């Protein structure tokens, strides 16, 4: 599965766990804060991805980076995975 599909699948699982209702049709331009997932939900998404992929791009980066859109979020993970390989 490619990273975007993994993130999408995890997003759905975490949204349910966090009692959040996601907006329909999340695409690369969807602003994360408007996706329906709250900040705690995002923390859970990062935590679940860390368990599954063994990476935490946000801790690995030298500077604090906060992706604004879903596309940017996926890009951060894609880049971190490519650096690991």
């Amino acid at each position, binding site marked *: 599965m490619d990273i975007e599909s993994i993130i999408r699948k995890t997003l759905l699982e975490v949204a349910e766990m966090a009692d959040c209702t996601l907006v329909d049709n999340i695409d690369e331009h969807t602003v994360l804060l408007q996706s329906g997932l709250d900040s705690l939900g995002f*923390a859970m998404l990062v935590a679940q991805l860390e368990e599954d992929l063994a990476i935490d791009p946000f801790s690995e980066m030298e500077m604090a980076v906060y992706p604004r859109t879903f596309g940017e979020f996926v890009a951060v993970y894609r880049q971190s995975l490519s650096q690991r390989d």
Partner: protein
Amino acid sequence: MNKLVVVTGASRGLGLAIVKQLLKHTVIKYDVLAISRSKSDELLQLEEEYSTSDKRLHILNADLLKLNNIQALCTKMVKDYGRPYALINNAALGFDGVLATMHNSQIDELLSVNVQAPILLSKYLLRPMLLNRKGRIINISSIIAKTGFNGLSVYAASKAALEGFSFSLAREVGKAGVTVNCVAPGYMQTDMTQSLQGEKLESVKRRSPLGRLATPDDAASAVLYLLSEEANAITGTVITVDAGSTA
């Protein structure tokens, strides 16, 4: 399934008392991950004692002053032992001395071990707790956070910081079933307080309403209570265990 509890500063004093009470508990089965720089004889003895029981004590040596290693330490703990139920931030430095002559490196070390390390441990161990939708973070503060004590200004700052941290974090993670509290012991006789002896010690005892000091076991009992299901509705608060000294 046993509940995994991470205890820092577990080699002596209050940390060791907490580990002992956790392993002895009969109602809930706790496994313990004990963290400190050194392995004390008492801790090794406990490890041996429980090696054939249905509860486990794992000893991990780590220097929490090395803040950059904390994430890797947490990742390893979760990978090797599973998602923890609770984190007890107990390790701390207790340098005393008047501020005007305290070395900057000591100020730095104290704030790293007493404040930054617990924050980072909470950050990374909170994640598995969020995924479990259940967890406990207990930070060991001190009555000094609120009362003040000659020669302990930096230490006091570190404990007040930990309390402030706990109140806000409790608000942040309550929705996910994680509680965050502090236990604030009064003066206890441990290695940390060796320098207080003689008449000064007697006067602390005399002034306490119960005519004695709180012991590490007294403070550990409060920690065990906060870990229990009975404490489900308690978050964002401080339990003082000081034999009444601050009453």
